[in-house]
């Protein structure tokens, strides 16, 4: 195990080259007499290590991660596809990095032109009337969308709409967001084919319904075939339709949420648009809206004046805006990467993304089916992802979905998403993405087959997995989550 950095610490060691006063003997008197009453009594107990110690420590730690750049990473719902490195390189240029957020628009025409064009491209790609880029992740995009729905009803004086409908398959951020916005949440069931239960929807819709939040393709890896009907029903009830765009990768360039009838959407740029996931972020969650929600969009956005110059649109231009969602304008560096990616792909490229994401998922699903694994919706085409359920294996061998997932780590694969969506027991949600080769998929199938064989022959071994994740120095066996929660050890 790599020691904690604090274990390498040695009092008084520090990196002269990173301090503003390089010559110790020449240190100017720190003229902070006026600060005296505010000074801390003791320095923070940060590690005192050399630059080499730090570089080595964090380089070694990095090698303990599985990542897209090193491993197949079929984490369903997360679209762990390859981020073209050029998108990082072009975004890391000094001109972009050094610009202060409050410096004049005239000094930021480069970055603002990119953002403006990105707004336009996303608008076109989603079929929405307008786009604001400012939300900093999918969940904040959801917040913006639901807040706009609330603002819309409020603006119309329609104050009884206090409920948001959400399918039981939905991602946790959907109900959490609705609650954050002050709504109560009602779950709508899924039918046996994985579509929304229309009767349940009909029953739930009413004068108290503010909106329905839907993911399409759904988190079951299925295209919601009744979407047009659903949109009609929701609108007839006076409610609005929200689109969780986390799965846009499956349909980009082929079907547009705007055409399906959605009023508000968010887009996870760290999924479809190949911006980095960064071990948990940063992402960005631009929102798009239909015409009726346009006045409520969050600010700032980028406008272009008649001389072709770009400028910030704020509450001056959007007096009904739901307001600001960040101190400045959101995760601009991430948006630059999305912009670069979209310029690489264009429409044709986007269609290829959707096609090959779908092809890879269906191929992998078929290979696993042929190998005897049970898919959750055997009569459906997969979209960009699909679900298998390991109920049988759990019953027969006492080896459950988590065990399979953990054992995959030993085989050098990141695990698919487990136990989500909640309605499918012992499920793995598998998303290969379009950037993996057939060879990767075949290797994954081989590993799944091998693990099932192990589950038959030596179930205890699989239940113990991982035994040794192949990382430098030898990886961990299974870590104890329960202990971690029972006795939180959250700092050294």
């Amino acid at each position: 195990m790599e020691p904690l950095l604090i274990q390498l610490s040695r009092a008084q060691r520090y990196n002269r080259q990173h301090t503003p006063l390089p010559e110790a003997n020449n240190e100017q008197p720190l003229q902070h007499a006026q600060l005296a009453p505010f000074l801390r009594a003791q320095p923070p107990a940060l590690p005192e290590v050399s630059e080499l110690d730090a570089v080595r420590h964090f380089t070694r730690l990095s090698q303990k991660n599985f990542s897209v750049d090193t491993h197949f990473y079929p984490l369903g719902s997360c679209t762990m596809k390859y981020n073209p490195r050029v998108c990082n390189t072009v975004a890391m240029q000094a001109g972009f990095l050094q610009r202060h957020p409050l410096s004049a628009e005239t000094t930021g025409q480069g970055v603002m032109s990119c953002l403006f064009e990105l707004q336009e491209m996303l608008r076109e790609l989603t079929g929405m009337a307008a786009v604001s880029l400012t939300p900093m992740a999918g969940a904040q995009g959801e917040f913006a969308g639901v807040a706009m729905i609330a603002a819309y009803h409020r603006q119309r004086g329609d104050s009884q709409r206090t409920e948001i409908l959400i399918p039981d398959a939905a991602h946790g951020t959907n109900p959490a967001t609705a609650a954050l916005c002050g709504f109560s949440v009602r779950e709508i069931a899924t039918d046996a084919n994985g579509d929304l239960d229309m009767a349940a929807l009909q029953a739930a819709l009413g004068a108290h319904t503010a909106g329905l939040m839907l993911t399409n393709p759904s988190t079951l890896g299925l295209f919601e075939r009744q979407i047009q009907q659903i949109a009609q029903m929701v609108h007839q009830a006076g409610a609005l339709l929200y689109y969780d765009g986390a799965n846009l990768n499956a349909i980009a360039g082929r079907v547009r949420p705007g055409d399906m009838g959605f009023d508000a959407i968010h887009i996870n740029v760290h999924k479809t648009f190949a911006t980095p996931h960064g071990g948990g972020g940063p992402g960005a969650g631009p929102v798009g809206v239909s015409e009726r929600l346009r006045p409520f969009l969050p600010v700032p956005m980028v406008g272009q004046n008649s001389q072709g110059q770009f400028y910030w649109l704020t509450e001056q231009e959007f007096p009904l805006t739901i307001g600001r969602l960040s101190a400045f304008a959101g995760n601009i560096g991430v948006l630059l990467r999305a912009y670069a990616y979209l310029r690489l792909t264009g429409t044709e490229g986007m269609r290829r993304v959707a096609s090959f994401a779908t092809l890879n998922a269906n191929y992998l699903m078929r290979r696993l089916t042929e190998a005897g694994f049970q898919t959750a919706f055997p009569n459906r085409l997969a979209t960009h992802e699909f679900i298998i359920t390991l109920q049988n294996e759990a019953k027969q061998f006492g080896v459950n979905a988590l065990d399979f997932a953990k054992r995959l780590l030993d085989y050098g694969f990141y695990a698919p998403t487990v136990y989500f969506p909640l309605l499918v027991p012992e499920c793995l949600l598998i998303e290969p993405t379009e950037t993996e080769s057939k060879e990767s998929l075949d290797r994954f199938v081989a590993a799944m087959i091998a693990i099932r064989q192990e589950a038959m022959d030596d179930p205890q071994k699989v239940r113990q997995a991982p035994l040794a994740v192949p990382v430098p120095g030898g990886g961990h066996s299974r870590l104890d989550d329960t202990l971690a929660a029972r006795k939180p050890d959250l700092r050294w």
Partner: protein
Amino acid sequence: MLSLLGLEQLEQLFAEIPVDLLCHEQLALPNPLNEMALSRLMRERAGQDRPLLCFAGAGAYEHHIPAAIWEIAGRGEFYSAYTPYQAEASQGTLQVLYEYQSMMATLLGSDVVNASLYDGATALAEAIFMAIRSKPHLPKRILVPDTLHPHYRQVLHSMLLGQGIEILPLPFARNEGDIHPDALQAHTAGSFAALVVAQPNFFGILEEVHQLTDWAHQQQALLIAVVNPLSLGLLQPPGQWGTTGADIICGEGQPLGIPLSSGGPYFGFMGCKNHLLRQMPGRIAGRTLDKNQEPGFVLTLQAREQHIRRAKATSNICTNQGLMTVAATLYLSLMGPEGLRQTAASCHHNTLTLANRLQQIPGLRLLFGRPFFHEIVVELPKNGQSLLAALEKQGICAGVALGPYYPEMENMLLLCATEMRTAQDIEQLAQALSSALQQEH
């Protein structure tokens, strides 16, 4: 691969989609570029944004960023991994998060710290939700001083509205630039759930945090501190404010190794007292043991989060700003306590120099009398915005105009000098300012 599926065309993969929904026409996106053309385009775009000599602060600060930080944070294993759901295959990210939490906790003086929120402004909103949840018997009312960053106040408006949380503003002392002591009088014990205090505040001024903290606690309210983490290399940690310390501590992490980037990505940090832990939003990494009793790291206390608790979660946050915390962890590691102290001291020192130099310019005046950290408000004989425009032409960003935020302050600029601003830089600004002022007189 298609043949295994018994298909002939890629199009057949989309057979379940209602035909009338399919895009038949080409979407109007620009033609694809190859990487060569893209690189050239983006070089041109970045070239348009010429860096200025920067005296702007106001929540985003130009600090020295050691090169090692982004060379390492940009490594594929950090850059292209996701939230560490599979702990055993994500020990890199998880140990970094644990170390981040540890370092931030000592810096803030807080018991525990989470693994990041979006930015400083949203972190404050989350802190307020947290305060409201943990004070269920108090009215949903929060005291928010006008010395808090105006953008933060705007974000609070956007985010607190849905839950009907009321924001009660506190005016500031005109000559001092801190929360007006009389402003507190209007609020009685039990009439609000929390008091927010920014240290340094938006004007760069140091608030009387000990009194404010003790006062809030006397009123049964929580004290939410909003701090600049870099200043804590020098200043008292919020965990030690007053008799018992701030309850929730949050702020903007950008000063810790994150480039300005026109405003993002940055990261919000949050710490709190132990007893509030289960109300805290966001990911938390914890240390545990594996089956061989070897220590290792996992995401923990997930029962607070949306993917488990759904509508009852402490927050809807999922993707956070993970990579930025990797950078901040590297920053804190490379600086150490002494580097951080010297950097903070140098910021303060340079701002003192700036203040002294600007006061020599006829017509300029330092507005507030109280101690400041690394920002000052300067009063001009003319409109701040037009002066800024004049200096921008000379490659100088001479601060931030206060008029747009405080209508009565339209002749005022907020300026900052970090450790990056040399004596020559300050002289250059002073001379450019002098001549710009003279020219128009």
